[in-house]
């Protein structure tokens, strides 16, 4: 359960709107069920009072929205950013994609978000309501008379289980307690497992996963590192435009090319895997790059500092030779 409550956020939002600090609030709008919240801009106190929601299903990363939402608005936007979101926000500032003066960042502490599909796997389908109680999520289904309790641990999204940091790297104001970085999060555990496979096993693993891809582009469109105004894959003049793979080889290439493109800029927010309708663990491709960069160039966390030079775009005489990368084991 989140220690931050809805009331903390709505009262902050309303007071900042009323005193003119911000002209809009980026928050979560209530849905049909308890878990289907939609990121949304709120312009009035009434709208916030009626429709603003904060609960354990507020996983969406708001940073990328600020790229476009700050363009069409007078004044500042209030953005509630979780620690992981602030890394993406900083990375976008580094890439000059957001005008910092247009955003009022309220950092909010986060206790890890829930994943509805994990809950569904426990309770079964037909979830009519979920309430976040101190002892767990009370899940009412149409098949049961009494609600079932799912512990926060069991419901927690994979990306939150190995959360890299509870510390905000950017904010104007903070609600809740500031946390710490978590170097022992074991986020590279699965990557190490894949590295330990034989090349054939690893190839089979990725083929199996990527064969489910329906090429909806949700991973790309949600990714805060993918902010090209016209992606090469939907530019008819690029020569690489395609909506569908002409061969299965191409399907694998799409994701690998994308992983290369965001290498060194990916903050490991995990949105790509969250939105994938086929639950392909796309974040593992990005984590592999992060792990390699750490190994070969020293620890680097994209988004930690605004303006930092990522190792892949920063030449130093100490850089390792290509051959050293090529000859290592466990590629």
């Amino acid at each position, binding site marked *: 359960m989140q220690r931050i409550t809805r009331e903390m956020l709505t009262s902050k939002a309303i007071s900042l709107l009323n005193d003119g600090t911000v002209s809009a609030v980026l928050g979560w709008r209530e*849905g*049909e*069920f308890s878990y*289907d*919240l*939609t*990121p*949304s*801009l709120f312009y009035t106190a009434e709208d916030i009072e009626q429709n603003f929601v904060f609960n354990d299903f507020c996983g*969406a990363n708001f940073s990328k*929205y600020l790229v476009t939402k700050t363009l069409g608005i007078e004044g500042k936007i209030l953005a509630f950013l979780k620690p992981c979101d602030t890394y993406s926000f900083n990375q976008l500032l580094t890439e000059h994609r957001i005008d910092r003066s247009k955003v009022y960042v309220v950092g909010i502490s986060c206790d890890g978000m829930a994943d509805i599909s994990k809950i569904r*796997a426990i309770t*079964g*389908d*037909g*979830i*009519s309501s979920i309430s976040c109680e101190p002892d767990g999520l009370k899940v009412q*289904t*149409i*098949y049961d008379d009494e609600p079932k309790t799912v512990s926060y641990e069991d419901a927690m999204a994979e990306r939150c289980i190995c959360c890299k940091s509870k510390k905000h790297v950017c904010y104007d104001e903070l609600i809740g307690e500031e946390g710490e970085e978590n170097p022992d999060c074991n986020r590279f555990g699965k990557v190490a497992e894949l590295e330990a496979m034989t090349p054939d096993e690893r190839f089979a693993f990725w083929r*199996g996963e990527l064969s*489910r891809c*329906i*090429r*909806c*582009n*949700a991973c*790309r*469109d*949600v990714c805060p590192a993918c902010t090209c105004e016209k992606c090469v894959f*939907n*530019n*008819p003049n690029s020569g690489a*435009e*395609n*909506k*569908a*793979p*002409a061969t299965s080889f191409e399907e694998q290439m799409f994701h690998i090319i994308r992983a290369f493109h965001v290498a060194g800029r990916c903050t490991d927010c995990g949105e790509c895997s*969250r*939105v994938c*309708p*086929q*639950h392909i663990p796309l974040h593992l491709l990005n984590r592999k790059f992060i792990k390699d960069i750490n190994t070969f160039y020293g620890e680097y966390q994209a988004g930690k500092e605004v303006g930092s030079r990522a190792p892949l775009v920063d030449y130093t005489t100490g850089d390792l030779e290509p051959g050293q990368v090529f000859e290592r084991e466990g590629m």
Partner: protein
Amino acid sequence: MRKSLLTSVDSIFSKISESMALFLPVDDPTGRANYTRWEEGKKWSEALNTVKSPKDFFFPQVEDLMKFKVSGKNIELKNTAKIDEDFVVFGVRPCDVRSFDVLDNVFLSEPRDGYYAARRKHGIIVSVACSKPSETCFCHTFGIDPAGEYGDVTVWKGENELFWKANTEKGEKVMELISEFTESCDDNAADDIKAKIEKIAEKLPLRNLSAENFGGDKTDEYFDRPEWKSLSESCLGCGTCTFVCPTCQCYDIKDFNTGKDVIRFRCWDSCMYSEFTQMSAGQPRLTQLERFRQRFMHKLVYYPANYDGMFSCVGCGRCLKSCPIHMNIVKVMKTLGGKADE
């Protein structure tokens, strides 16, 4: 009506597979179901529905239409499509069977789409009634009965038995094929199952969602509604909703140069994509608002206008489960249609 033991279902699948390809929902390692070709060892999924809809069988995500050989100024054309083998799709839910009617209106109206027509001719649909609907189901809104008779054969799944009813000649043939595993039973044998489904369906949270405020004559009423702005504001412009949707039928035709030949293929396209309507001369749908509006106006107004009032949505709920920002047709209908009465 005939019945079979649930334990004999793999033998039935094996029997069908002997004479034609059989596809059915099978769980992948993450626990999600997708249609898969049956072979020894594949287990029929318990899931309510597949991530990708069965429209793939008749309107595949990618299909080669023809092949060209280009040399200098010369072009040779080869029609490469070959669709002449029967196949069975087992486990199609009533909503998805209805989606074929929606697609039929488009692809089988003149001029008929030959590729789609050939697949429809060779495809045999075995529907399975929904014993466990999800909160995201709203097929009732479009007059679909989760316990009803759809497809060439309908199957109702009980605790230990399956009940089978052939609805068409094609269905009779399948029933004949598996007759050694089934025995005749009373026509009312599945009534208990149907009643149970109906009782559950009454409890569905979207049970009362109505489409009556939408229809072919409503362009003026909805096109300029200010709510489109807030509804579409967070849309990522991805194609998830359109690609999991059983009724979305927009496509692109593209050429792929293999180096030896040029293959002209057709693939799913999405009205949510900016380049969908991009011309050298201009862009009629400039922002995501126009693209978002197009998708829902098409389903709730334009399609009914062109096809006798039928809606281009079957309430399967896939978009409710898959949209990265949880925006969907139910929210659109409630936001726009709810206020139309005031």
